[in-house]
């Protein structure tokens, strides 16, 4: 017999009040302001924007506070907020070649137009904790160097001149970019849809898969052709204006991964490419995305699909941390009835098992006696 029960309303309300208290913490410590988070935890804000798939710094900062710094919870909050807003349209595709560059490095060319610009990087730091930061001392203004505004073509364009690298990825002329926020995932999927899923995918998951390709699971000999970080302008076509309306700019990170390719029945020896593009400043994510993009193109190049990182359905179905956390974390919600049914079943199976064993034992005794 199944008897429906309800309860826990008071417990839930009190738990949420307790959460609010613990979130605020010691009242003698000043409360965080959103602008402090936006300015001083900027890369955390960027991660929430990237995986929450919503570019809005203040909202991401609010989500981080509300989630007590739990990034996946914050990403969940941002995703939920997105669904409450109407959509005005699709922007014109951004031009990363026209980026106001804040960092740009290439591991394949030492001298390239525009040069190697380190920007605000953790690279070459000694990873020693800095007690001065804890003391909250003043920070000096960064140096400036007068320079002519120099064109900074993408590195892929330089290699393309020799014809030794595949071109930027094209789709058939009548192809409309797919949108996973509008249509359910279907496999196999086109590269544009994969890239959308990867761009909002979990950084840790993509990092681990990218790492696995380097360790030999779908090895594809990657080089960072280029990583660039900076602001790009957004424009939107709207019916009420005769020109694309400028919306202001967003910061993105782009990675051009260049991969040696020995050729196959389908393509001659050349460099192939993986592409990463994410909101905010996150070259780890952009690089991992580019490694995964290249690995997922295995069939396109006639490569054997032997590793997890090449398995499109595996990678794309498990890259979304909001879906993943929803399914894993739902396990802690009440499953009393499910479990009761399982318990009955296991009891019955155990009783049948024991009965069978007893019967077998009796049989053996009988045979021994004869």
């Amino acid at each position, binding site marked *: 017999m199944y008897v429906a029960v309800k309860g826990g309303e008071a417990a839930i309300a009190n738990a949420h009040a307790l959460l609010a208290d613990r979130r605020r913490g010691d009242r003698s410590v000043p409360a965080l302001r959103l602008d402090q988070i936006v300015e001083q935890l900027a890369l955390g804000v960027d991660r929430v924007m990237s995986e929450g*798939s*919503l*570019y*809005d710094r*203040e909202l991401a900062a609010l989500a981080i506070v509300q989630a007590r710094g739990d990034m996946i919870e914050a990403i969940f909050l941002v995703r939920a907020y*997105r669904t409450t*807003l*109407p*959509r*005005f349209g*699709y*922007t014109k*595709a*951004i031009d*990363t*070649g026209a980026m*106001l*560059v*804040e*960092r740009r490095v290439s591991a394949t060319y*030492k*001298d390239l137009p525009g*040069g*190697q*610009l*380190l*920007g605000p990087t953790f690279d070459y730091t000694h990873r020693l904790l800095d007690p001065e930061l804890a003391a909250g001392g003043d920070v000096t203004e*960064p140096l*400036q*160097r*007068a*320079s002519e*505004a120099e064109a900074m073509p993408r590195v*892929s364009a330089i290699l393309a001149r020799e014809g030794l690298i595949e*071109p*930027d990825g094209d*789709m058939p002329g009548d192809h409309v*970019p*797919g949108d996973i*926020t509008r249509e359910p995932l279907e496999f196999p999927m086109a590269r*544009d*849809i994969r*890239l*959308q899923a990867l*761009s909002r995918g979990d950084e840790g998951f993509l990092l681990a898969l990218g790492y696995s390709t380097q360790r030999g699971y779908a090895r594809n000999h990657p080089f960072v052709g280029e990583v660039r970080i900076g602001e790009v*302008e957004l424009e*939107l076509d*709207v019916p*009420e204006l005769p*020109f694309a309306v*400028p919306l*202001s*700019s*967003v910061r*993105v990170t*782009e990675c051009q991964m260049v991969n040696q390719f020995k050729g196959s029945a389908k393509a001659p020896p050349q460099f192939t490419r993986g*592409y990463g*593009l*994410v*909101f905010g400043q996150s070259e780890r994510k952009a690089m991992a995305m580019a490694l995964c993009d290249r690995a997922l193109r295995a069939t396109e190049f006639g490569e054997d699909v032997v590793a997890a990182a090449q398995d499109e359905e595996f990678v794309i179905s498990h890259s979304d941390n909001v879906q993943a956390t929803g399914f894993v974390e739902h396990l802690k919600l009440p499953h009393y009835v499910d479990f009761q049914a399982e318990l009955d079943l296991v009891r019955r199976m155990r009783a049948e098992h024991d009965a069978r064993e007893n019967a077998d034992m009796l049989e053996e005794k009988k045979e021994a006696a004869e």
Partner: protein
Amino acid sequence: MRGQEAREQAERKAVMATLAQSSGADIVRLWNEAGLPSEAELLRGPETGLVTVRGRIGGGGAPFNVGEATVTRATVRLASGQVGHCYALGRDREKARLAAIADALWQDPARRGEVETRLVAPLRAAQDEAREKRRAETAATKVDFFTMVRGED
């Protein structure tokens, strides 16, 4: 005529770009200093929604969807008949409303000069300065390679 129309559209777009890039606080401050009229009939909004940002595969290939961004838009009509629009990233409704009024005022030949000099020019100058500062700070982190000569010859 065609050429002049295209030029005027380019100028109007540049004004909209400057306003969209500016903070609401800066627009309000200059607006009050200039004493521009801040009343207009609201035809739409201000309302916040999303745009889906598109990138290109490999940087220059086929477009794909990267993610969404918040955008606030407004459309206003002045008593003199001009209709102005604003679309700008973020959720600042007052900024969108004022920027739409600025767009409408700019279309009024009698008002254009005032909008350009009192509002747009100072905003543009501040943005240019900030951009140049950013560029110069980045340029200071440029790697200068030098060659170490080794061996006899």
